[in-house]
């Protein structure tokens, strides 16, 4: 793999243009975009800036074709049975909220989540506890933050209607054994929703092989434009759900008293969509497939390993998650005892333009339970290099000497 050649596809990494060499280790928040994605977005605004699926003119027809194509590409990317199982959203959060609000819960139904869920996969269920009287149960993870199958099985019973889990954790990069979890959940009649925001950019996903019921992801973490996302749902399930947001383009017909909803995915895509974003997301999917997940995982593993090896020697620095870097994907989250994580992140930025995430990464519950104030997260992608990992490690060594 020629990383330098790949980096040329990303204008944000062009130090001649940006006038500084940025070391971008914040992909878990949002990835950089290749030129092909930027071009696809620009093309929409420059050539066919029209509505999809509504007007009959030539521009509208062209946009409709492009949006349909993006849906097909995403369906193939996830190996969905049909394109209609793909609902475009703004992000993973919206996808999870859609399921949380549309799923036919009854009071007393149980939803299971793990103890290190992103707020996007925790707060929507807390709201359902208050609004519909469901019960939210937390699956504790193992001490090394890997999934505790025994704890999960102990909580599984007939009352569990939905298991909502982060497929890959944004906290430590750990990917759960989704296939086994889904099989066990289905055995008790529970449905499974996977938050794949951190999985889709790094691992191939086969929703049919997984037999997952719902899966939400964000486009902007997988090279797509900001504010794009997808909710996958088994078609039969989607048909049975009531729509969450309603309005324009969700109905076939309406009277003053009633309306006739369109079939999925339209009934879940209310209002005018982000066509430029959707088309850009399609381009991102094509680009990802062109790079290939083997290449992606190989490069991420190299960087995480190099970084972990160097961080081991820094006194007082603790890595969150399993000791084996191979289990953490491209994520290396750490904290230094007694040192504010934001300070470390700001210093890295000042010292060598190293961009990392600091704080509690929207997993406040996990940090609060362990009384850890925060951490620094360096999340690598295939466009990062070993040299960049070395720069980060060297900066951290200096910081440790000073703070």
């Amino acid at each position, binding site marked *: 793999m020629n990383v330098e050649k790949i980096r040329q596809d990303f204008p944000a990494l062009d130090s001649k243009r940006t006038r500084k060499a940025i070391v971008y280790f914040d992909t878990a928040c949002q990835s950089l975009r290749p030129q092909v994605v930027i071009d696809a977005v620009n093309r929409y605004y420059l050539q066919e800036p029209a509505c999809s699926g509504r007007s009959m003119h030539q521009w509208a027809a062209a946009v409709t074709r492009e949006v349909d194509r993006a849906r097909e590409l995403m369906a193939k990317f996830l190996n969905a049975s049909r394109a209609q199982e793909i609902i475009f959203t703004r992000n993973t959060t919206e996808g999870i909220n859609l399921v949380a609000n549309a799923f036919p819960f009854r009071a007393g139904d149980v939803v299971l989540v793990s103890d290190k869920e992103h707020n996007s996969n925790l707060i929507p269920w807390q709201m359902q506890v208050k609004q519909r009287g469901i019960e939210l149960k937390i699956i504790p993870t193992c001490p090394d933050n890997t999934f505790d199958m025994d704890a999960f099985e102990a909580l599984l019973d007939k009352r569990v209607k939905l298991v909502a889990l982060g497929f890959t954790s944004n906290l430590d990069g750990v990917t759960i054994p989704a296939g086994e979890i889904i099989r066990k959940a289905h055995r008790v009649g529970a449905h499974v929703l996977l938050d794949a925001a951190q999985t889709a950019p790094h691992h191939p996903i086969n929703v049919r092989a997984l037999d997952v019921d719902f899966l939400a992801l964000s486009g902007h973490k997988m090279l797509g434009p900001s504010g794009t996302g997808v909710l996958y749902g088994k078609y039969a399930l989607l048909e049975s759900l009531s729509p969450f947001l309603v309005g324009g383009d969700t109905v076939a017909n309406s009277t003053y008293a009633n309306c006739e909803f369109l079939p999925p995915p339209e009934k879940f895509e209310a209002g005018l969509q982000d066509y430029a974003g959707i088309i850009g997301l399609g381009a991102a999917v094509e680009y990802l497939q062109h790079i290939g997940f083997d290449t992606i995982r190989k490069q991420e593993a190299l960087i995480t390993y190099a970084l972990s090896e160097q961080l081991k020697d820094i006194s007082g620095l603790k890595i969150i998650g399993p000791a084996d870097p191979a289990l953490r994907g491209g994520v290396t989250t750490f904290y230094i005892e007694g040192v*504010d994580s*934001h*300070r*470390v*992140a*700001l*210093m*890295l*930025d*000042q*010292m*060598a333009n190293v961009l990392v995430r600091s704080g509690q990464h929207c997993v406040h519950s996990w940090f609060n339970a362990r009384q850890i104030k925060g951490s620094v997260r360096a999340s690598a992608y295939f466009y990062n290099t070993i040299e960049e990992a070395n720069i980060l490690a060297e900066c951290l060594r*200096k*910081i440790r*000497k*000073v*703070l």
Partner: protein
Amino acid sequence: MFCIVSFIVLSILGIFSASNRSLAKEALDCVLRRVTFRPCTTGFDEKMKAKILGVVIMRSETLARLLNKYFEALAWAFFTLLLASSIIFARGLYLFYVTGSCNGLNQAAFCVFDPSGANNQVSTFAGCLNGEGDISKLTLEGVNLSDFPTLQPESAYRVVLIGCYTCDYTRKVYDSVLTLVRRYHTQLVFLHYPVNEKNDFLSRLGYCAYQQNPEGYWRLNEELIHSDKAMLSELTNGPSLLSTLKPETNRFLEALVSEAGLDAGRVLTCANDPATEAAVQRQMNEIVKTNFYGTPTLFIGDQVFVGPKPYRVYAIALKGLFFWLRS
């Protein structure tokens, strides 16, 4: 403490940059919390500290370590310095406004608002006088001013100006002084001293003009102040006898006197009269008693202004800091 220093510095920088403006806003929030004894929860101080450390650490780890260790103490030191320099700056600004120099009245040391020191420059003369250059010796005590031209003699308050028609600094300030005394209806006593002149002809001319018609004298004064210096030098740099003047200089002089509404013939005859020379010499002797050492020198109350000060400085001396509120 760091928040306060940052707020002040960033507020100033914020005038020029929007990013600094937003940081200044954060600093203000932090300051408001601190002054109300609440913790600064904005993280502003942490953020700035990290940014500073991030820059320093790349140059010297030792310095960064010291900075990290003594950050609060350094913030206090900077705050103290900032406070002290702010006070000095405010004092300088006030003094400049009130006296025309950051350093105080008649102080010629460098002032950033008057870098060339123009407000303190004077036209000096070659000969020595008692107390030359000593501001503390400038006085009107024992000086008989009754023989000198006085504008608005009915006014109770008196302003005394020692000046010279051909001196640049007197010329610069004369109109301001005239405006001042007219606006605030104050006496003006004008003491002409030929600082850069080789003879006292213009003093005698003024003396005679005043004897003939005081109002005409003030008109002549203004014309002399505003007239061409080269023409005046014909009158002041040679022998004072009219007979020796070039015809065009003579015509210039006659026109000057006539335009002031005076009888040119009588005034010029008087100026050449030996009795006039004696009277002018008496006046010179009185002026010397003031111990002045250059022009313009202006006495307003118990204050003496040496050099061409801005109008506001005279007005403040006369009517106080808020002179513009008074008629």
